[in-house]
């Protein structure tokens, strides 16, 4: 009887501790998002979006340059990375389906998804910044694209595998060549998934800082020139937060709020779409 009670007690304690662990996880999420919202909302103003930075130490000014820079860098990263990722994923899921090479390449892609992004920054520095002799928005875009490719590739592969094989067979039976089957049947069936996957991957790279530090660098002036150094929200947050001025800290928080909100919204909506479309659990 005594032993039974101890076992039950032990169980209750262990389960309570687990519940606390879950509460702790939620607590961190609320704590981090809460601080970002509180500090950021206090510093956010319309001028933040439409003004360029003022010289260091002078209050006022905004981050228009960083918004534009971030947009351009991410846009070109998407233009470079997404087609390569989608086509590569198509190869793995269609032409190389079930073959050994498909298995190895997707495993490699899985590893590359998690490889330290700062290493990608040093790589792009060596192959683009050093030969060109200066930092550039292009280098930043290529660095982000390199990070994006394996993510998009894996998502596409997964989404294409979900399209039932019989659909393809039906098209084959009509005499369609494989590329036509892929473009007109398979892609059509997987479009929601691929599109959402692309959105999620954009959200992922938009928050990257480390690969931009030595590629697009930073620029305190407004610039639409992809061939020169370019400001981005994330690198600006780093610079401002480490800087000595209170005004800079406020602006860093404001930028943090904007980028966090944008990424959270895209991520939540994207995951919900995928869940509604594919998850039946």
């Amino acid at each position, binding site marked *: 009887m005594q032993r039974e009670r101890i*076992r*039950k007690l032990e169980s209750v304690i*262990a*389960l309570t*501790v687990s519940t606390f*662990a*879950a509460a*702790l*996880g939620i607590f961190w*999420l609320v704590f*981090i*998002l809460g601080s*970002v919202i509180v500090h950021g909302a206090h510093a956010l103003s319309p001028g933040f979006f439409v003004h360029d930075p003022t010289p260091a130490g002078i209050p006022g000014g905004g981050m228009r340059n960083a918004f534009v820079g971030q947009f351009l860098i991410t846009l070109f990263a998407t233009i470079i990375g997404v087609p*390569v990722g989608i*086509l*590569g994923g198509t190869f793995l899921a269609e*032409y*190389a389906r*079930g*073959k050994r090479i498909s298995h190895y*390449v997707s495993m*490699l892609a*899985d590893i*590359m998804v*998690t*490889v*330290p*992004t*700062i*290493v990608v*920054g*040093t790589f792009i*520095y*060596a*192959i683009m910044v050093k030969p060109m002799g200066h930092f550039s928005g292009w280098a930043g875009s290529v660095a982000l694209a*390199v990070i994006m*490719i394996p993510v998009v*590739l894996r998502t596409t592969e997964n989404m294409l*595998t*979900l399209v039932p*094989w019989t659909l*393809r067979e039906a098209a084959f039976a009509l005499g369609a*060549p*494989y*590329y036509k089957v892929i473009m007109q049947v398979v892609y059509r069936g997987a479009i929601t998934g691929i599109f959402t996957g692309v959105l999620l991957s954009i959200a992922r790279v938009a*928050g*990257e*800082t480390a690969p931009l*530090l*030595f590629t697009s660098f930073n620029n305190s002036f407004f610039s639409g020139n992809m061939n020169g150094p370019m400001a981005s929200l*994330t690198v600006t*947050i780093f610079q401002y*937060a*480490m800087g000595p001025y209170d005004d800079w800290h406020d602006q*860093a928080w404001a930028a*943090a709020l904007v980028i*966090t909100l944008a990424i959270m919204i895209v991520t939540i909506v994207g*995951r919900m779409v995928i869940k509604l479309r*594919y998850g039946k*659990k």
Partner: protein
Amino acid sequence: MAIAIKREAADVKRRPPIFRRDPLDILFYAVTALAAMAVVAVTLGIFYILVRESYPAIKKFGVFGFIVSKEWDPYREVFGAATNLFGTAVATCLSLIIAIPVALGIAIFVTEIAPDFLKGPIGAAIELLAAIPSIIYGIWGFFTLAPIMSAHIEPFLMNTLGRLPLVGPLFQGTPMGIDLLTASVILSIMIIPFTASISRDAFNLTPEIVKESAYAVGATRWEVVKNVVIPYSRLGIFGGVALSLGRALGETMAVAFVLGNNHQITTSLFDAAATITVTLANEFTEASTKTYLSSLFYLALLLFVLSFAILAVAKIFLVRYEKKNPREQ
């Protein structure tokens, strides 16, 4: 990771016909194959370029010599990786020690305890932690967590654990908040979602019937988790932990703010230190001499090789685990 993708098992075996006679089909085949090879090319390219760029430093300092040397002196141009490796190892290990129990607790809660209507939302909320950009962890850690650590938590640890004989020296010094402990706490929050979601998926793969047999002989819920679910899914948990380890190794921005970038090997967790990533982030654009830059590339190479190896092991574990326990449809 967010959503378990069900692969139609029978599908994988079926191979498509290739209509070689259609030139457009051959073209499309070639283009997609080329795109897939981009991943391989980038991997090999990174390795080759990093070796090439760090070659002067490799020649000057050697491999073993570089790894064990504690020197990091840009003025005398003598460089060694020991302080950076030390910082990386301590921050990573400590963050895993903090994160693993919490992550397993979360996984247990989500799979075994939570009522059905809570399972989805709580799991999703924890996974949202992984979507927060690392720079946000950095700025939050710097302005919000570090002051709390230095004012409350570190003095408390100093007065309790710091007095103990064996572990005491770990918790002594000046509680500044900008140190190894704060960096590890932030890292641990960042990796919790990865470990938790993989462990949860692994727990979910434990067959109901095995669990029910344990309940039938009178096991309590905790005993089922401890003696059935965890042993059953240990390969999966292992993979998840290794994956988180790889993540923590390469994390830059979250620790760059709160580590202080001080090249030293310390006995106290309340001291500033430097990891490979933090050194790169802070010094790469300032490296003025060839040897300096080359040594930084050398560090990047070490980091790349290290994390690649760990992630490959993680992946192999996870693939083995999935093979052993195919998802039920």
